[in-house]
């Protein structure tokens, strides 16, 4: 089995790719995808620590399942908001959504 450090390094890479999408992309849907990538990295970390450190209990798996469920809920609402914005404003560019500044 691969060492724990390899899994943690891979999760760090996934998280940072998602972080770049959140910071640098303009499309609301692609930003949501970045958040999904970051939460995927969290799931990998939780399962890795369960497998290598605390395999006797199921706590790590339960937390990983909860993270997947919460991610699903967050993406559902985010996609629905993006669709509502597209309908009302005709754009999915987050830079153009400045109504809270007014």
């Amino acid at each position, binding site marked *: *089995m*691969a*060492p724990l*450090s*390899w*899994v943690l*390094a*891979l999760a*760090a890479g*996934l998280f*940072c*790719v*998602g*972080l*770049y999408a*959140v*910071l*640098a*992309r*303009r*499309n609301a*849907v*692609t930003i949501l*995808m*970045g958040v*999904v*990538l970051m939460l*995927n990295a969290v*799931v*990998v970390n939780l*399962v890795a620590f369960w*497998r*290598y*450190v605390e*395999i006797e*209990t*199921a706590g790590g*798996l*339960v937390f*990983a*399942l*909860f993270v*997947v*469920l*919460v*991610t*699903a*809920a967050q*993406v*559902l*609402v985010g*996609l*629905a908001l*993006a*669709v*509502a914005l*597209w*309908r009302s404003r005709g754009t*999915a560019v987050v*830079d153009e959504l400045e109504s809270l500044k007014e």
Partner: protein
Amino acid sequence: MRTAHASIMGLQQILFIVFGTIALGAAVAAVALRNAFHSALALAGSCLGVAGLLVSLGAPIVAGVQALVFIGGIAASIRFGPAPLREMTRSVHLGHNRSWWVGVVVAAALCGAIVWMVFSTDLDPAPDAAFIPSGSIEALGVALVSAEGFVLPLTIAVLLVGVALAGAARLVGRR
């Protein structure tokens, strides 16, 4: 015996490298592609790689849920979902914002710091490759539905998903 043990370890490490490459490569593609529809396809590939990683770590249940939710749910909703969502993902071709280099610097610095910390820490050695976590599925089921376990958090999480689903349907259905 030792040769068989070494071959198991080699196979598991090869699987880890293959699935990790798929997950990371598809994630980079999802972030780099300009078309949101193509990004969604790449994200589905990345989630597939992560699911393979979870299976290789001994968590097939989490991998199955992950595949069902992300590949079956999100990618399918972008491909077969409501017409405005399909129109938006197909027609929008957007690159990166003007301060994209800040994102590169922050992400690279954070990744470097985490990797440095991970490899400079004396972590426990890898568990025995021949040890398969038997009963983990049964233990997970008991933990999810027992009163001493996680039945209340599970109920709250399911309620949260249900409310989010209803809210999303209301938002998308409103004209």
